[in-house]
Every structure is written in structure tokens, then in C-alpha cells.
């Protein structure tokens, strides 16, 4: 079993001139980077970390824009044998104070030794860290050592063992940043070997990705897998894609892209927001697998996407599905590669009331479920009842998995690790059911909202909204409601207020939007202000999110 550094070393020796990735940034020439260039650029960072006294096995947090700097610094940290973790960069919307407190909460748990960022951002990092932090070095990107000769023997990364932790992945928000998923070299390679076999990944494939690298889908499928396995990668900026989704399709056309991964909302977003005049010359016939992944997948979104882009060469057989999570490195299941994605028409009421996926009957409301496919060869999936007993086919329970590519643990969070892994099985917090080997995901046990592929913890948003003057502390609830049109969840906040004055209500509602967006980079779709005692609490005084969501939906006529 190799390590990351050994794998890069082989590419450096065997195919130095092969293009590892092509970086597409708006307003610049496309930039092909060979393995030699990638490793030389990374080696400069390796020497920088050595100069700064960072030791192999220590954690380095990368706070950089989606850029070449980020790519080189990431691989340089790997070559050094240190453990990289990418923290999303501060966006213009996000309030610096909030960003600082998020960073501080990450640092307090993860206890990294170093942070790599830009010179102009370093003061922000120093302020966030305060005194007594674990961080001994804040390294700025322009102080990187010059690119020079590459001497693998000097790299700490060659001393790492397959079972050592190679990287950490954090999800966003205060809660997510306090749970870093720690993955070993071995786990990552076990995933890549099984996943690439499942995908029939070949050297003539081309992976095209616009996904952010701080998320497992972008990091594993759209960055590490292609580079480690020598499959050409074309990479775009997520910030540019969201403003011009056609860029993905243009990149697939130009580079004859074969595989991409998209969260469900992207199917709707591409289908609805791209104009015909922007599609001139677009040819998607090379796309053999577009995998819907990282938020609940919808049959309607696939239909929409196919109808819109079939005239541009998109094949129905290219529509694939994938159920994935950082805790399993990435993919748990994959559908649509060897056979079309399976669909399951089930009785809507039986699912909601009895928690059973009963085949639809004529004349009764039905729901088309999309299979996430069978588990990868090295992954077992079970559906569990609340006592941890396996459930039969078509009964909805919590999905649990066991594999040889699971997380080592949540970094410095033995409590969270113990809670999630029982008897070697990772409890996903997702509900689902099985039909034979096909896995269907059907909602979430955990109180999490997935908006645009991003995991959001409602308590983070509720705490922000409670800061607004006029809102009752402790009397706020946040939840997600699926928006058919957007193909993702809308975030709703319901808050109790005393006032009935319209101008004051407008002020409170605007301030809640502002404070939540600037505190979490999540835009609220609805702010619903209600009178005192509206919210339903549990007997222990906690907010019952599900019950409040139902009440809200009835009140606004959605249910």
C-alpha cells in the first residue's frame, strides 16, 4: 500500500511531462500543469514548511483562494508529511469578526501548528488566534521558497506510513469546523482503488470539476483522485461557475470531458440559467458519467437536465448517482455506470407515515425515488432501526456503513468519534432503505440543512439570528424546505418577536437576513416573524425543528 508521496514520486519519475491538471480561471489563458511542474511547485512549499520548523505529522491549515497557490501549498504540505486542511477563504459577504470566531473554533479543537495564507490576510489570522494558540507559524504565500531541484529523499512525506493520517476535511460553520474528519493514506487509496474500478476510470478519461476543494466531492473526486491516479483534470473556480454555469459545459466541450460530479441543485441551475446564445458550440457527447452527489438527488432534476442538454449531445446514459461522505473518504455507493440508474416509484403516504417504501399503487400519490446505486465493492451498507438492529428491504431506517476506507476518527474529538462509530459501523445520520443492493436515501436524522451542496447546521444560524435586537433569545428556529424549482433546500428562519409595527418588523427581518448571511455565507429565502409562544418546544426546552417546520408549512400554505 503506497502513500501519497510515494505515488507522486512515481509520477515524477515515470511521466514528468504528462499534464496533471489544467487550471481555468476567467480572463487568463488555460494553464496546463505537468507532474514535473506540480511537484516542483509543491516542493518549494515543502522547503518552506521545513524552514519554518513545521514537523511531519503536524496540521497545517490552508486559507487561500481557489488558485495555483492553494494547489501547490496543498501538495507541498503532503510532501512534507504534514497534514493539510483547507479552510474556506473569507468572502466579501462574510463578516470578518464571524470568520475570526469560526477560525478560532477550528484552531481550538484541531490545534494546528501552522497556517498558510496571504500577506494581507495574516493580520486577520493573528487576531483570530489570539495568545496561547497552538499555531506557531503564520506563513504568507509570498514567502514561499523559490522553485528549485526536487529531492524526494529529503521529503518527510516519504517517511509516512499508510496508516498515518494524510489529511483532514472539515465541513462549514461553527459546528462543522469543530469536527475534522481524519483520513489515512490507506483509507484514501482503498477508496480510490475501489471507486476507480467501479467507474472504469481509464487514462483517456478527463475529469472536469468546478467544485470547491474544501468539500469532499471537490477534494477527492475533483482533485486528489485524478492527480494520484494520473487521470487528466480540468479545474474551474466555484466562484466563477456560480456566476456563469455555462463555463462547466464549455470546459467539457473544449477538453472532451468524460466525468463530472454535481450537487443536485447544479442540474436545475444549469438547465434554467444558461441561455441558448451561450450554448453555441457546446458539445456534451464526451460526457459518460455525470454523478449527482452530496445533496438529495431528484428524478425531476435529472429529467430537466437531460431535456435541456440532450440537443447538445448529453446522453441519457451519462446520468449517474453517488452517495458519498467525507467519513468514508468519499463514495459509499455509485449508480448508473454499468446499468441505468434505478428508479423506484413508491407510495408517498406510506413513506411519510409508516416509514415504508411500498411500491406505488394506481390512483394514490406516488414519489419517484432515485437509487444511489449499489455500495462500492469494499463498502457494506445496512439499514438500522433505532436500537441498531438491521431492517429488511423497503423499511426506512438509519443508513450505517462499514468499509476499509472509513475515517480514522474526528480529529481530537474522541467523543464525536465514539458517538458516530459503533462496533465498527459508521452511523451516517441519513435515513434510507434498500431494495436488494440498491440504496435509496430518504431524508436525514440529523438536524442538518443541505443547501447548494453545502452542509449547514441550523443551530449556527439560530444563534446568529438571536443577536438581532427585538428577537427573543432562544425563540428562533432554522430549517430547510425543499424548493422544487431550485432543486435544493431553501433556508427558512422563524423568529418570535413582540412588535407588530410593520417598519420594525421589516427592520428585524432585514437584520436577520444580514446577520445570517454575513455570519454564515448562507442566504435566507424566507424570514417568518411570529408572535410570542408560536414556537413548539420539547419537554426539555429544546426547539423541535421538525414540528416547527410542519407548523410553518401549514401556516404559509405549503402543506
Amino acid at each position, binding site marked *: 500500500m503506497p502513500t501519497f508521496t510515494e505515488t507522486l514520486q512515481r509520477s515524477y519519475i515515470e511521466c514528468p511531462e504528462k499534464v496533471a491538471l489544467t487550471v481555468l480561471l*476567467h*480572463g487568463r489563458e488555460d494553464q496546463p500543469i505537468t507532474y514535473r511542474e506540480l511537484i516542483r511547485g509543491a516542493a518549494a512549499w515543502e522547503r518552506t514548511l521545513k524552514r519554518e520548523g513545521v514537523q511531519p505529522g503536524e496540521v497545517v491549515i490552508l486559507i487561500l483562494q481557489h488558485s495555483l497557490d492553494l494547489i501547490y501549498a496543498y501538495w507541498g504540505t503532503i510532501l512534507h508529511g504534514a497534514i493539510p486542511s483547507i479552510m474556506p477563504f473569507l468572502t*466579501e*459577504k462574510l463578516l470578518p469578526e464571524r470568520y475570526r470566531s469560526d477560525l478560532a473554533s477550528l484552531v481550538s479543537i484541531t490545534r494546528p501548528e501552522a497556517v498558510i495564507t496571504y500577506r494581507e490576510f495574516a493580520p486577520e489570522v493573528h487576531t483570530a488566534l489570539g495568545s496561547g494558540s497552538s499555531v506557531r507559524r503564520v506563513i504568507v504565500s509570498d514567502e514561499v521558497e523559490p522553485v528549485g531541484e526536487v529531492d524526494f529523499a529529503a521529503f518527510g512525506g516519504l517517511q509516512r506510513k499508510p496508516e498515518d493520517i494524510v489529511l483532514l476535511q472539515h465541513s462549514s460553520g461553527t459546528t462543522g469546523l469543530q469536527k475534522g474528519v481524519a483520513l489515512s493514506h490507506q483509507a484514501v487509496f482503498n477508496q480510490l482503488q475501489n471507486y476507480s474500478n467501479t467507474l472504469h476510470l481509464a487514462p483517456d478519461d478527463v475529469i472536469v470539476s468546478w467544485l470547491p476543494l474544501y468539500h469532499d466531492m471537490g477534494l477527492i473526486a475533483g482533485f486528489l483522485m485524478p492527480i494520484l491516479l494520473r487521470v487528466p483534470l480540468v479545474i474551474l473556480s466555484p*466562484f*466563477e461557475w*456560480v*456566476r*456563469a*454555469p455555462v463555463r462547466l459545459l464549455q470546459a467539457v466541450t473544449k477538453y472532451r470531458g468524460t466525468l463530472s460530479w454535481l450537487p443536485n441543485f447544479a442540474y436545475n*441551475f444549469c438547465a434554467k*440559467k444558461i*441561455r441558448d446564445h451561450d450554448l453555441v458550440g457546446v458539445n456534451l457527447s464526451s460526457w459518460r458519467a455525470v454523478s449527482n452527489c452530496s445533496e438529495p438527488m431528484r428524478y425531476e432534476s435529472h429529467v430537466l437536465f437531460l431535456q435541456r442538454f440532450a440537443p447538445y449531445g448529453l446522453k441519457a446514459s451519462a446520468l449517474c448517482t453517488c452517495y458519498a461522505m467525507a467519513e468514508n473518504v468519499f463514495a459509499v455507493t455509485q449508480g448508473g455506470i454499468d446499468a441505468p440508474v434505478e428508479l423506484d416509484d413508491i407510495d408517498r403516504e406510506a413513506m411519510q407515515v409508516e416509514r415504508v417504501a411500498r411500491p406505488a399503487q394506481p390512483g394514490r400519490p406516488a414519489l419517484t425515488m432515485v437509487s444511489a446505486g449499489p455500495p462500492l465493492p469494499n463498502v457494506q451498507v445496512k439499514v438500522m432501526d433505532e436500537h441498531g438492529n438491521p431492517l429488511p428491504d423497503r423499511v426506512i431506517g438509519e443508513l450505517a456503513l462499514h468499509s476499509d476506507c472509513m475515517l480514522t476518527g474526528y480529529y481530537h474529538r474522541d467523543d464525536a468519534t465514539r458517538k458516530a462509530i459503533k462496533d465498527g459501523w459508521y452511523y451516517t445520520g441519513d435515513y434510507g432503505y434498500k431494495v436488494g443492493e440498491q440504496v435509496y436515501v430518504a431524508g436525514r436524522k440529523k438536524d442538518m440543512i443541505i443547501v*447548494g451542496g453545502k452542509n449547514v447546521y441550523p443551530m449556527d444560524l439560530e444563534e446568529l439570528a438571536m443577536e438581532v435586537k427585538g428577537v427573543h433569545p432562544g425563540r428562533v428556529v432554522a430549517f430547510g424546505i425543499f424548493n422544487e424549482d*431550485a432543486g435544493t433546500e431553501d433556508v427558512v428562519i422563524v423568529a418570535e418577536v413582540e412588535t407588530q409595527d410593520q417598519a420594525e418588523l*421589516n427592520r428585524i*427581518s*432585514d437584520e436577520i*437576513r*444580514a*446577520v*445570517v*448571511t*454575513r455570519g454564515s455565507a448562507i*442566504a*435566507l*429565502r*424566507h424570514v417568518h416573524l411570529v408572535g410570542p409562544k408560536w414556537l413548539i418546544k420539547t419537554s426539555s426546552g429544546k426547539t423541535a425543528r421538525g414540528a416547527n417546520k410542519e407548523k410553518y408549512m401549514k401556516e404559509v400554505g405549503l402543506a
Partner: protein
Amino acid sequence: MNTDMIQQLGAYIATNVLKQPNRVLSPDQPLITSGMVDSFSLVDLALFVEDTYHVHLDDSELNSDTFDTLAQLAALIEARAA
């Protein structure tokens, strides 16, 4: 200042983005930096502007440096249409 255009843009945002059709937005109220209009809604807004006023906003312009208020957006549209 084109008050009709400002009113029309404001009504579009109130109805489609904020889901508060009765809201009246002031011409100088920050929309992007305040978190009211996010990047996904900006793409919709650009399509609305293109359909309604036949003015194209490039994707690189969809940020608060280009416009943050209804008045600024209306001024931009007028300058382009002229």
C-alpha cells in the same frame, strides 16, 4: 434617476428573492453586501435585466463592486442602454 426602473427592479427582488411581494425597497438600500441577494439570485437578476431592458451584465460584474443598490443598478442599466 429612473424611478420606474427602480420600482420595477425593487418589485422583482421583493417578490422573487425576498418572497415579500409587498415590501418596498429603498433605492439606496444595500442589497448584496447586506446579504439580501446572494450569488444564485444574482444570476436570476441578471437574466431579468437582460429580458426586461435588453442589457447584458457580464458574469464578472455580478458583485457588489459593480452595484449594490437599486439606484446603482438602474444607473448601470441606463448607461448601457443609452
